[in-house]
């Protein structure tokens, strides 16, 4: 029983990550009709926002390790800690959540720059060209990050208060030994918040209504005299922010390196398509569905019956869904079907 509950939690947590990454991708896919292979790079840039913010905060005075004479070895003492003994360590400790403040304007700027500078010239171009240019961009961004940060993953710690695990059994009175890391629970809650925020934005504001109308019929909205282009670039910026925040919050779970975006790229496309093209709800649903199924497929009991199932479950589910439901879970007719 506990095992199953834990796997459901795992699935939700994974699903939250998948859904969050897919959400930004499907916004760009569904509204702008752009196949964005650089979406993973945006996720990665978000993660490196957190890394950089942490680096700046922990800029340190170096204390020479005198025992080493062959080369210069230092122990680093962050200036914040020495200058502000009270508040300094706390700020450092909370560097990941604090870096969100930096990440939002930065990712928005990156998103707008990308759309204005590059993507908008490709709206009318074939998908093939979009793939090539965004893939090229992703490689360039990755290599720049690799040049400055190296290829090795860079560990990021969650705040001390959330570094441990929550004993859910004691708190909620279910099961016996259900403990789950605080940070993963926070990630789950954070994802749900962002997803809800994006939905509210699109459904409750006039801006959102126009964008949704644009998703339905771009030409019609254009004819009504609404500057849909301007709005689309904001949508692209929004997608970049969502991807970036997903990256920021994921760093304590997965130490980021320059390649982390590419690792998520294929998966996020699968999630979006299984959810159905042009459907935000579908992408979220597919994210959680794939997350939960992947968790269950990894259980030893399942693997002993179907060896290797955990390796292929995501793709297997994708095949089954697409064969049973022609446009994925909630896809709309005519989007990306030709």
């Amino acid at each position, binding site marked *: 029983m506990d*095992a199953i509950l834990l796997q459901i939690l795992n699935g939700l947590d*994974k699903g939250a990550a998948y859904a969050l990454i897919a959400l930004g991708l499907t916004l760009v896919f569904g509204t702008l009709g752009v196949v964005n292979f650089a979406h993973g790079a945006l996720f990665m840039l978000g993660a490196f926002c957190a890394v950089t913010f942490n680096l700046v905060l922990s800029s340190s005075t170096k204390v020479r390790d005198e025992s080493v004479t062959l080369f210069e*070895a230092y122990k680093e003492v962050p200036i914040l800690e020495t200058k502000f003994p009270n508040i300094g360590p706390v700020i450092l400790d909370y560097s990941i959540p604090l870096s969100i403040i930096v990440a939002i304007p930065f990712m928005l700027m990156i998103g707008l720059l990308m759309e204005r500078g590059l993507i908008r010239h490709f709206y009318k171009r074939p998908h093939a060209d979009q793939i090539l240019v965004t893939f090229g961009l992703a490689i360039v961004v990755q290599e720049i990050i*690799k040049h400055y940060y190296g290829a090795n993953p*860079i*560990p990021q*710690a969650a705040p001390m208060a959330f570094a441990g695990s929550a004993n859910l059994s004691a708190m909620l009175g279910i099961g016996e030994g259900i403990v789950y*890391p605080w940070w993963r629970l926070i990630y789950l809650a954070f994802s749900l918040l962002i997803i809800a925020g994006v939905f509210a934005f699109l459904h409750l504001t006039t801006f959102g209504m126009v964008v949704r109308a644009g998703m339905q019929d771009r030409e019609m909205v254009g004819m009504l005299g609404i500057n849909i282009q301007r709005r689309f670039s904001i949508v692209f910026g929004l997608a970049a922010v969502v991807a970036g925040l997903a990256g920021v919050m994921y760093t304590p779970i997965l130490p980021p390196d320059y390649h982390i975006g590419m690792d998520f790229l294929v998966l996020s496309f699968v999630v979006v398509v299984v959810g159905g093209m042009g459907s935000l709800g579908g992408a979220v649903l597919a994210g959680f569905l794939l997350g939960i199924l992947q968790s269950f497929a990894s259980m030893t009991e399942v693997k002993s019956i179907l060896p290797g199932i*955990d*390796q292929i479950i995501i793709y297997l589910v994708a095949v089954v869904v697409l064969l049973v439901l022609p446009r994925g879970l909630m896809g709309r007719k005519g989007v990306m079907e030709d």
Partner: protein
Amino acid sequence: MSNKKTPLNTWTRRDVLKASAASTAIAGAPMFFTRNAYGADYLNNPGDASSVTLGFNVPQSGAYADEGADELRAYQLAVEHLNGEGDGGMMNTMQPSALKGNGILGKKVEYVTGDTQTKSDAARASAKRMIEKDGAVMITGGSSSGVAVAVQGLCQEAGVIFMAGLTHSNDTTGKDRKANGFRHFFNGYMSGAALGPVLEKAYGKERRAYHLTADYNWGWTQEASIVASTENIGWTTDQTVKTPVGAGDFSQYITPILNSDADTLVLNHYGKDMINSLTQAVQFGLRDKSVNGKDFQIIVPLYSRLMAQGAGDNVKGIFGSTNWHWSLQDEGSKAFVKSFGAKYGNPPSQAAHTCYVQALLYADAVERAGTFEPCQVVAALEGHKFDGMGNGPTEYRAEDHQCFKDVLVVKGKENPSSQFDLLEIVEVTPRAQVEYPHDHEMFSGGALGSCNNGAA
């Protein structure tokens, strides 16, 4: 669309024949130039040239790029030392040594580099370029066992020497051993044999181990090695679970451990997988747990300092094994760390060490053989005993081309004094304890075959 006539229907049988005859004629012509021009004594014979070319094939992109960069630094240092530049590093401490500091056999050492991308195909393509285009007589490097086995096979086919870089799988000198290939690095079996007694001393005889294992050849051989050695000290194995390579998030494999009876987790992962699985295992509170009255423990059988860096504070107090560590205090290690540190400003990694040593060992063998001819170099390396290279007395065993030497058991340091000071040496396990017969069951199924000098 109704037009059925297609332009090329005018091809006749005779045309095809003519064309193919012509192409055969063209094909025949340049074949005179394909084999090297110095006569057929052996492939890429430097002959009377004033220099000789070595090929350094390391990962420069992908997950092991930093390790590869460190390997490349070590090779460049080795070339400097061989050519008599710099302070000579371990050339001064190597015993016995036939090296003179004037290149190899009086020829200046030059090198070419390539990117393996940690993919067998790319690694072989890169090695082929070095052999076919640049005329390399020896290929060395690499940071994963799959690539090492693939490139070793290629060098055997082509007829050049392969000096393996970082490769830890039993297979490299086990079932995939080759006459032209040599490995200085240690292997999974040795890790297990070295860790066993240390674990017994630290954690006792009664433990239940739970293995998470990277689902590919290296992971399997390491798992088998560790299972065998821990069961030898009385531990039981609760479960062995295979995880997909590059899984990223391991949570779904970690939660079942929380509900199992196991009190020890063995992570048979390397590189990014190890960093992620260890980080996440600690997050799930495994190290705060106690099972059956014992504190839960995590073990990482194969450690490297670069990995320890990626895992941050999570490595503290965790046991593992390593081939070499810069804090060793023997003369060889000190000399190497000094010249590496002076040149690059950071200590060498174990990957850098094994690569540097391999380059020197090759050069020394050539000097002793008096020729670059691969089969004579093989003969010079087989059974060669040496010392002063940081691992104590070492022997290249003739039967499987594996180096036998002491193995280091290390532990993540609790209070690092600098950014490089992440591991502390717990024990230097003597060679006798990690030695095994060359036809041991974990290494069986392969044969060296006969050496190939590419002249055929």
